């Protein structure tokens, strides 16, 4: 009894149950400080672009930052695009051009991503389930052949394609860009989907085959629904890459099939003082992907994480 009081305490509270200490608060502060710092670094350019699109020349020169506080937002930038409330009803050549480019970008990126996901998923499924022999090439060689396309820099293909497309009358057409974009994202799709299919047990299809489905039937009815989230991830990642692609679009299109990045780039040269219209244009160009980024964040992360972790 007497030495129980003198002996050191045996049962302690676990660290979680004790009141937080100074070091803990300091580490919290440091962590949140760094998080917020990086958030500012990531988001400030977007904020800057939005606010600049509502500024006028004096606001730009004075460096006003916060709307309604140190400057009054004006529709100047959006009016020059023909997208402000008072010009939206009237005709505008700039708006027509912008919408045309927007449509081009949308059609090209959606179609090429779709095509890449279809081709890539089929190939990845085949490679994950059957053993092939094309000549001396086996499965691992075929996989490597697809993935090695990743290291092919666009410049190598650009000039041959320029000449080839000229001969084929595909220069400055959407089809031409769609084919090329599909090619550039295909390795990434195969990479993601191979990982997805490898995670699905083959017993599932075996059961389906025993029940009398053909291979393609089993693929369409059993595997496809399971792999759908992975395909969505691959699709969205492809969408991001193809929507933002500039190099091929700048080389292979001139008047008809221009995409949005080409339009933004061509305006950049003549920026001068009309920051507000450039800001409006830039913001309109990034807005679709900003929305996709916020809504589909889960899929983008899933897509990029695939293959990173085995």
């Amino acid at each position, binding site marked *: 009894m007497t030495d129980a009081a003198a002996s050191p305490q045996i049962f302690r509270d676990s660290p979680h149950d004790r009141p937080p200490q100074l070091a803990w608060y300091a580490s919290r502060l440091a962590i949140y400080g760094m998080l917020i710092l990086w958030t500012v670094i990531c988001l400030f*350019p977007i904020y800057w*672009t939005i606010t600049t699109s509502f500024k006028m020349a004096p606001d730009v020169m004075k460096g006003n930052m916060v709307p309604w506080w140190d400057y009054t937002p004006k529709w100047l930038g959006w009016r020059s695009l023909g997208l402000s409330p008072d010009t939206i009803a009237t005709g505008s050549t700039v708006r027509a051009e912008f919408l045309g480019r927007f449509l081009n970008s949308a059609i090209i990126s959606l179609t090429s991503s779709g095509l890449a996901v279809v081709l890539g998923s089929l190939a990845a499924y085949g490679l994950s389930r059957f*053993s092939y022999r094309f000549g001396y090439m086996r499965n691992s060689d075929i996989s490597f052949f*697809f993935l090695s396309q990743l290291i092919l820099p*666009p410049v190598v293909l650009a000039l*041959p394609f320029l000449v*080839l497309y000229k001969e084929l009358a595909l220069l400055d057409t959407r089809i031409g860009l769609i084919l090329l974009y599909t090619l550039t994202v295909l390795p990434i799709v195969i990479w993601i989907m191979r990982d997805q299919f490898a995670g699905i047990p083959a017993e599932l299809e075996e059961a389906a085959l025993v029940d009398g489905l053909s291979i393609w039937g089993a693929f369409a009815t059993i595997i496809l629904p399971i792999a759908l989230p992975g395909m969505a991830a691959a699709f969205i990642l492809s969408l991001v890459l193809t929507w933002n692609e500039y190099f091929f679009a700048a080389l292979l299109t001139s008047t008809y099939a221009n995409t949005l990045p080409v339009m933004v780039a061509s305006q950049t040269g003549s920026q001068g003082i009309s920051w507000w219209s450039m800001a409006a244009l*830039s913001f309109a160009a990034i807005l679709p992907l900003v929305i996709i980024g916020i809504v589909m964040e889960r899929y983008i992360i899933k897509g990029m994480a695939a293959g990173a972790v085995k």
Partner: protein
Amino acid sequence: MTDSGDLLHVVTNDDIPRRRVVFGRAIVWGSAALLAGIATAQTLDRAGTLDLGFANWRPTLYAYVLWAGCLCWGQVLVRGEQGKRALFVLPAVLFVVSLVVFPLIFGLIIAFSDWNLSSPTGRKFNGLDNLRQMWADPFYWNALRNMIWYMLAIIVEYAIAFGLALLLNSQIRARKFFRVAFLMPLMLSPVAVSWMIGKSMLEPRFGPLARLARFFGVENPSFFESPEMARLVMMALDAWTYIPFMMIMILAGLQAIPKEVQEASRVDGANAWRGFWEVTFPLMLPVSVTAILIRIIFKLKLADIIINVTSGGPGGATDSVTSFIFREYRDRSNVGYGTMLAMVYLLLIVIFMTVLMKLLDRWMRPQY
């Protein structure tokens, strides 16, 4: 991934009627003959021996597509079940081969010719002249040297990305918000970024970053006048766009490490610092290697931002190989020389990547 034998065992009794096989072979060879015929006709037409009035090579393209379709269909007709399996991979293989291998062969021909699209003389074979010109072209070597600098920047990017991933993986509130915010730069088009940051935020008079620099006492901040500064800015811009990519991969790796491992190290008396270097970091090596490799691959294509912000200046200090070749074509329409530069670049990349992968393979192996 197995190499030997199918993962999916299928037993089928393929009774393919003889007529089906014959029909399958017939459409494959028939369409191939059609393709060869049209291609020959077009070649003769182009050479001037025949006058068939082809405006472009579209007919050959259509014949090729028809042949590719017949080849796929013929697989199923001739080989039955095996053909159906081949049909999974065949379309993608045909697509990639026709869009990569043909242009590459074609590119090799262009690379050894003197061809300026703006000159009326057309293509002339000129042997190794392009190579000699390249050897003496200081701007190309300069661009290659810049690529080495850009590659070295990946180390810093990796460190930042790892730090951010650790932050996101720690016990924090509003994790989803931070994740979305950190992901944002990756979603933005490099062209828009080059205006948003490169041209407006870094503008020396009114740009907010110039104001910030002046606030910290820098007189007349200029971001694109000295070569070193311009290159640093380019690295930073590119890093800003692609850090989220590495961050997400590393974050995925961190989340895959079982909590018990770190708990065990803490029980063994490791503090946070040693726990990181002796447990977390080694476990993350495979993921890190993948992330860095992919980042290298993307970095080798670096061009959009450079083309739009500095167009290689000042004095080629920020030029990447891709942006240099882009201007070689844009300003001088020099297709032959540009292609040769690109081919040499491809060769260098293939050598570099092969050596790198071999080294990594050797370095990583003892750990498994």
